[in-house]
C-alpha cells in the first residue's frame, strides 16, 4: 500500500492554521544536554494504565537506570532512576493536573553513573517478542502526549490484522520543535527504531509523516530511509495534523471508527520520540530516563531543546534556558494548543512532556467570552466534524444528555474550535467538563 502518489503534501478535512507557529524560536537550536541537578523528583505514575509498583524506599542507593518501580500490570511500564544517588523520601508533589501525586525524591550523588544496562540486541535479528519485551522493560510510553505504554500497542490482539506502522513526526503544535530536532539530529535512531517496531508488528509498510515545514528533517530522513524500508510522507502544515486519527486519514485515507483505535483500521501510530527511545532500548539496552524537551516562549532568554532527565522541575528547566527576560503570565506543559497551564513551577518533567512553554503577560488572551454567534467557523475547524458551537451551548445549560447525543465524547480536545471562535468561547473547557460528567454518569 502506498499513500497516493501526488506530490502535493497530504492532509485531512478540517483543522486550522495557527497564525503564530513560534517554531522559529527554537527550530535551529540543537539538542543540548542539561547539567546535572542536585535533586530529581520522579513522579511514580508516568504512564496511562495501572500505576507501577514502587520498589524503593527512603534511604535506598540508586544507580542511573536502576529500576525504581516495576510495571503494575499489562498496561503499565516500569520506571527507572534518572541518575545515581540516594532516595531522600517518597512524598507528594504537585502533579501536572494540579492534584498532588506520589513522587520519589532522589538526591543526586553527582556521578551520574549507569547501573547495569540490559544487554543490547542486534537490530537485524531481534525477535519481535524480544523487541516488545525490551520496549516494556525500558519503560517506554507514548512520548507524543498520551503516555500510553508502547508495548501494548505493539501487541495487537490476533483478530486485528495490522498492516501499517505510522511514525508521527508531524509535530503540528506551534512552538514545539523537540521531534523536529530529534529527526534532524538522530535520523538513524528514528529509522532503526521504525524498522524494529515494524518487525515487532510484522508490517511491511512503515511511514514517517512529517509536516513540510520541516524540510531539513524530510530531506535527511528521505536520504537514509531506503535502507530501512521506510517511506517518508510529506504532510501539509495544518493543525492537528499529528492527531493519530487524522494522521492515519491523511496517509492511508482510512477513518478510525468512533470510539475505535488505530488498530481497527490496521494501523499503529508511534511518536518519533517513542521510536527513538525504543531504538535506544533495543540497541543499547538503555531504559527511558530522559527525553528531549523544547523550552520556549517569548519570555525565555535562550529558547531551545534540551535533553532533560525525568524528574527535572520546570523551574530548573527554565533556568537552563537562561531564565526569563520578562515576567511570564503563563507556564504551559506541552504546546499552546493542547498544553496544560500550570500554577506551580514545582511540577517535573515526565515521559510525555514534550515542551515547556512560557507566555508573555501581554500575549495571554484573557477571554471575555460572549454568546455563540453561530458563525460555523468551529464546525469547519473541527477535525472530528463535531458541532462545537451547539455542543457548548448545550453544556452551558448543563444538558449533558444532549451533548452526549451529539457525540461530545468524540472530541479529541485539539482546541481548533476554541482557537478559531470569534466569540472567544471556552469550548474545550466545556467539552472536558462534559466528557468528565458523562464518563462519571456511565460509570454509575
Amino acid at each position, binding site marked *: 500500500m502506498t499513500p497516493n502518489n501526488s506530490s502535493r503534501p497530504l492532509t485531512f478535512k478540517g483543522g*486550522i492554521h*495557527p497564525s*503564530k507557529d513560534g517554531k522559529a524560536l527554537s527550530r535551529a537550536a540543537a539538542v543540548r544536554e542539561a547539567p546535572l541537578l542536585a535533586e530529581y523528583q520522579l513522579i511514580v505514575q508516568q504512564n496511562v494504565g495501572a500505576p507501577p509498583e514502587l520498589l524503593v524506599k527512603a534511604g535506598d542507593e540508586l544507580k542511573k537506570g536502576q529500576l525504581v518501580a516495576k510495571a503494575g500490570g499489562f498496561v503499565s511500564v516500569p520506571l527507572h532512576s534518572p541518575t545515581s544517588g540516594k532516595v531522600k523520601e517518597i512524598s507528594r508533589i504537585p502533579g501536572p493536573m494540579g492534584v498532588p501525586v506520589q513522587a520519589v525524591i532522589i538526591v543526586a550523588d553527582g556521578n551520574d553513573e549507569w547501573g547495569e544496562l540490559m544487554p543490547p540486541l542486534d537490530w537485524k535479528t531481534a525477535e519481535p517478542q524480544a523487541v516488545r519485551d525490551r520496549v516494556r522493560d525500558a519503560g517506554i510510553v507514548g512520548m507524543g502526549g498520551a503516555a500510553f505504554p508502547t508495548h501494548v500497542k505493539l501487541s495487537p490482539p490476533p483478530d486485528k490484522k495490522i498492516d501499517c506502522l505510522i511514525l508521527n513526526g508531524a509535530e503540528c503544535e506551534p512552538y514545539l520543535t523537540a521531534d523536529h530536532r530529534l529527526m534532524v539530529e538522530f535520523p538513524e535512531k528514528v529509522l532503526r527504531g521504525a524498522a524494529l517496531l515494524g518487525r515487532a508488528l510484522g508490517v511491511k509498510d512503515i511511514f514517517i509523516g512529517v509536516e513540510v515545514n520541516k524540510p531539513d528533517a524530510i530531506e535527511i530522513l528521505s536520504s537514509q530511509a531506503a535502507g530501512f524500508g521506510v517511506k517518508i510522507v510529506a504532510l501539509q502544515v495544518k493543525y492537528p495534523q499529528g492527531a493519530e*486519527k487524522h494522521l492515519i*486519514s491523511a496517509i492511508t485515507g482510512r*477513518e478510525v*471508527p*468512533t*470510539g*475505535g483505535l488505530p488498530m481497527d483500521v490496521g494501523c499503529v501510530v508511534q511518536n518519533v520520540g517513542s521510536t527513538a527511545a525504543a531504538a535506544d532500548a533495543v540497541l543499547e539496552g538503555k531504559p527511558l530516563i530522559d527525553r528531549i524537551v523544547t523550552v520556549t516562549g517569548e519570555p525565555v532568554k535562550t529558547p531551545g531543546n534540551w535533553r532533560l532527565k525525568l524528574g527535572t522541575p520546570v523551574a530548573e528547566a527554565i*533556568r537552563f534556558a537562561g531564565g*526569563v527576560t520578562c*515576567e*511570564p*503570565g*503563563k*507556564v*504551559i506543559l*506541552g504546546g*499552546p*494548543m493542547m*498544553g496544560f*497551564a*500550570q*500554577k*506551580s*513551577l514545582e511540577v517535573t518533567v515526565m515521559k510525555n512532556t514534550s515542551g515547556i512553554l512560557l*507566555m508573555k*503577560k501581554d500575549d*495571554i*488572551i484573557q*477571554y471575555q467570552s*460572549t*454568546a*455563540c*454567534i*453561530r*458563525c*460555523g*467557523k468551529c*464546525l469547519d475547524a473541527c477535525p*472530528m*466534524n*463535531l*458541532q462545537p458551537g*451547539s455542543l457548548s451551548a448545550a453544556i452551558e445549560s448543563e444538558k449533558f444528555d444532549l451533548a452526549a447525543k*451529539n*457525540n461530545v465524547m468524540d472530541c479529541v*480536545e485539539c*482546541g481548533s474550535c*476554541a*482557537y*478559531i*471562535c*470569534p*466569540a472567544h468561547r*471556552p469550548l*474545550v*473547557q466545556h467539552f*472536558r467538563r462534559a466528557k468528565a460528567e458523562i464518563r462519571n454518569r456511565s460509570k454509575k
Partner: protein
Amino acid sequence: MSEEVKAEVQAKIPAQAETPPPVMLPKGNELVLSSSPHIHAAENVPSIMFKVIIALLPAVFAGILLFGAAALLVIAYCIVFSVAAELLWCKLAGKPLSTVRDLSAVVTGLLLALNLSAGVPWWLCLIGAFIAIWLGKQVFGGLGHNPFNPALVARVALLIALPKYMTAWVPAKFMNGNAASYARQFFTPAAWNSVLGAPLDGVTCATPLGLVGTTAKVLGPAPGVFAEVANPTAYLQYFLGNVGGCLGETSALALLIGGLLLVLFKLIKWQIPVFYLGTVAVFTAVINYCFPGVTPPALFHLLTGGLMLGAIFMATDMVTSPMTEPGAIIFGIGCGIVTCVIRIWGNYPEGVSFAILFMNALVPLIDRFATKKPFGYHPWDRKKGAQA
C-alpha cells in the same frame, strides 16, 4: 501585570538572597490558569461586524447616490436609534454597556435602513430600531440568541403596522435620465419629509414588483403584459438600481460587490445566496414558461425587489441561518420557494422578508437534521454511534 505587583516582586528578590538569582522566575500564584488552547485567532465579533459594514458600503453609497440626502438621513437615523436602543436596554437590564462595542447593533441599524424607503419619517426609523433591537434581539438574550433576523422582524412589523409609509416609494434620482438636474434633486422634499416626520406624498412612484402585482391583479394573466417592465433596457436600470424601492435594495451591482467582499472575508456560506437566487431563477423561469402571463421572466425577478439584499446580506446572517453547508443549501432553497410563492400568488408584491423570517423559524429543525457526519461514523450507523 500592574506596576505595583512588579515592584513588589522586585522588592522581594533581594530579601530572599544576597546575590540576585541568575534568572527571574514567576511566582506560582501569579500565573494565569486557563484551558487550552492558549493562543487564539485574531478574528473576533467586532471585527466580523466591521467587515460586514465594509461590505455594505457599496450598497450604502449606491443608496445615497440614487436617493439623495433623504437616504443618508434614514441611514443615520436607523444606526443612531439602534445603538441607542441597545444602550438603553443594556442599561435597563443591567447588562454591561460594552455589548454595544460588538457593532452588531450598527449592522442591524444599517440593514434596517437599507430596507426602508428613502424619506420615511424619522419616527418610523425610531420605532423600527426599537423593534429590531428589543423585540428582535434583546428579549432573546442579545447577540447570538435571537432566532429571527432582527432587521427583518422590524421591517415586517412596520409593514404590518404602517403599510401606508412602507409602500410609498421615492423615485431614484436618475430615473428620468436627467442627470443634469441631479445636483438639484439630491436634496428632495423627501429629505424634509424625513426630518419633519410627514408621510411621503406627491413624489412617490411604484416599484417594478409593485407594478407587476398591480398588473396581475387588474388584467389577470395574459401573455405579453410584462413587456413594459421586463425588457433589456429596464434590466440595465434594475441592475444599476435606477428604480423605486428600498434605499439599499435597488442596486444589484452594489450588492453583488458587497457579496463578493463577504465571500472574500469568509463571512458567509456562499451556498445560501447561490441556492436562494438559483431557486428563484428556476422557479420563476418554469412558471413563466408553463403559464405565460402569470409572472415576468426569471431575470426580472432576480434583479428586482429585495432579493439581492436579502439573499446576500440578510439570509446569510449567521445567527439566524443554519450552521452546516447542507443546512445552508436547504435554507437557500426554502427561502427561494417561499419568496416565489408570495411574489407570484400572494397579496404582498414582495416576499423576501417573509421568506427569510419563515425559514429562520425552520433553522432549528434544519440544524437538527442537516448535520455533518462526525469523523469515524459510517452514514448508516449514525444512530448507533449516538447511543453509544
